[in-house]
């Protein structure tokens, strides 16, 4: 499968500050989560992809177009939803979306029809006729999202799309992103700080730190724990149950949610041992599932590693 975005040794300097430090990145079709602490270079990366800032060095292709050369062609094929509010005061919601459609080349009448269709898709009702400066954060997010997809782009770049949304609206927006990517065949780059958003919709995760790609893998692969571990929930945790597990040389730990994580040599023997111990200690296992690496732990581990100086560097100091 060909990557949609392929970047090699991308460097972006802002005077003395290096925002992107040799980024090598392949973004595959599907939904990719772009994670990173503040100042990691996420916004610079997005702006470099869109051709909004000139890159200092490096090469790349975006949807088959050359980076830093075919900026207009790239922006023609991409729908960008910025993190910040960006609107023209005095316009109504539908006018903003129509304006975005016109800038992307939709004819006037067709652009208006399409704007209404997309606002319907985004669940904007009569408030679309109100001046945008009177909108709530959620409504503005919807208008920004509608403006990003009105021209039917192949690829979406969504910068903090769920920021400021209530749980219901957040869920609805993630659902729309899934619909676009699963049913309409689009791909998306989702830059966010909200890890559960990435966990719920993304196929691939990229973690940036200090201007470098620290991790780029599929979410399924990242979630998989290397040693056989299961997470169980039981009706009541008894001392006998825990003692028997430890006697069988199983690693046992209690999680924050009250569940028990048990690690063994293989998944099959581990499962049969668990049932045996439960039977012997008259404990009822309510749920049993393979344990996963949490995205939060992956993120923290990656960022901490990125910020820990290497032994060579420490020695040099």
């Amino acid at each position, binding site marked *: 499968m060909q990557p949609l975005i392929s970047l090699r040794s991308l460097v972006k300097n*802002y005077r003395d500050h290096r*925002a992107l430090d040799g980024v090598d990145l392949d973004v595959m079709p599907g939904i990719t989560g772009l994670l990173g602490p503040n100042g990691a270079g996420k*916004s*610079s990366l997005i*702006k470099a992809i*869109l051709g*909004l*800032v000139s890159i200092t060095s490096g090469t790349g292709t975006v949807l088959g177009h050359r980076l830093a050369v075919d*900026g*207009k*062609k790239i*922006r*023609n094929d*991409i729908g*960008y939803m*910025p993190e*910040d*509010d*960006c*609107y*023209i*005061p*005095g*316009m109504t919601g539908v*006018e*903003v979306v129509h*304006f*975005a459609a*016109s*800038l*992307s*080349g*939709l*004819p006037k009448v*067709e652009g208006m029809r*399409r704007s*209404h*269709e*997309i*606002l*319907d*898709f985004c*669940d*904007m*009702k009569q408030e679309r006729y109100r001046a945008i400066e009177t909108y709530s954060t959620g409504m503005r997010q919807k208008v920004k999202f509608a*403006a990003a*997809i009105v*021209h*039917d782009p192949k690829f979406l770049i969504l910068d903090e799309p769920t920021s400021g949304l209530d749980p219901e609206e957040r869920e609805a927006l993630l659902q*729309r992103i899934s*619909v*676009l990517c699963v*049913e*309409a065949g689009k791909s998306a780059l989702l830059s966010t700080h909200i890890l559960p958003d990435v966990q719920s919709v993304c196929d691939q995760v990229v973690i940036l730190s200090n201007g470098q790609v620290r991790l780029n893998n599929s979410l399924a692969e990242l979630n998989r724990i290397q040693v056989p571990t299961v997470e169980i929930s039981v009706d009541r945790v008894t001392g006998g149950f825990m003692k028997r597990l430890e006697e069988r040389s199983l690693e046992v730990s209690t999680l924050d949610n009250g569940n028990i994580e048990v690690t063994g040599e293989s998944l099959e023997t581990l499962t049969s041992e668990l049932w045996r111990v439960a039977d012997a200690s008259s404990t009822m296992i309510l749920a049993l599932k393979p344990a996963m690496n949490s995205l939060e732990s992956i993120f923290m581990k990656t960022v901490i590693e990125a910020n820990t100086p290497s032994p060579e560097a420490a020695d040099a100091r």
Partner: protein
Amino acid sequence: MPVNHLGYRPWKAKLTSALTRWWCISASGISLAQKSALVKRMLFAAWLPVLYWGVGFFFVGQAMEGKVDLLPPSLQNQINSVANKMSSEDRDRLRAAKSGPNRIAVAALLKQQFKRIPQVNQLADNLLEGDESSSRNRVWCWLMMSFFRYPQGLMILFLVGAITPSLISRDIRSRAFLLYFSRPISKTEYILGKFFIPATFIALVTTLPAIGLYLFGVLMSPDLSVVTSTWDVPLRIIVGTVVLTVPTVSVALMFSSLTQESRFASFSWFAFFAIGHAAWLAVVFGYAFRNGRAMPFDMSLMEEPSVKLWGLLSLFNNIGEVQGWVFGFSPFSDAWPGMLVLLLITVFSLVVIYRQISSPMRV
């Protein structure tokens, strides 16, 4: 759920030409600007002088065609009395010239009423010495130039000041530039789109009425052959509009790009216009008082080199100098310093705008 919810549907159709996409920016800006009650009032006020100039076209046209009888009696009396009071020098030129009596009367009237304005003297001489078609051309050009210079030139100050300052500052404040630049729009197209918002309004109050006046003049003429002698007037009108529009809009857009607060941009625009002009007028009046030519004020001293140089401080004066050349009343040698200043102002403004709209992209 909305009534027409169709879910997400792919869209595929022919896109508009990339070459004309900047016009979307202009069209939306024009649409927003015309919602303003202030702008609507200004547009109305800017069209009022057209009536005055229309009457001027009518009277001059009638007088030149020998239909003095159609003129109001008071104006007929004035023309006759002025013609009777012509200087002996003008009388001699009158005898030598082929001019008809009515054109001579108009020339005399111009010399009597506007004798301190060099361009009017030039016009009157042309009426006395030129043939009928060249005289008509000169009169129309003069009417157009005065229309551009006095009522509309000043109206533009207010119209540009009302529309332009918010155009870029508002985008910076509301971060709307991301809406533009995340689309297939370049910075040049953005500037072009913004430029044509005030430019369209300027054209509405200068080019459109001037072309209307020209057509009115043609229709008031005995036959359509006047078009052959005045074909250049519409072209001069268009070039005159460009001279008026390009530097003023560029400067106003530059001020708009320098701040997030539109009111600061408005203030800077008016201050730039007023301070430059006031400085020049101060020099002119100082010179006039020192040489005893202030009462009555002798406008011909503005043509004196030591005073004229200071005119470069005034945007209004520079535009006037170049328009004088555009409408054929000044030689190029008089216009080029002003033209150079306008060019430098425009280039400087565009460079600043370009830099300013690039800077928000820097994180």
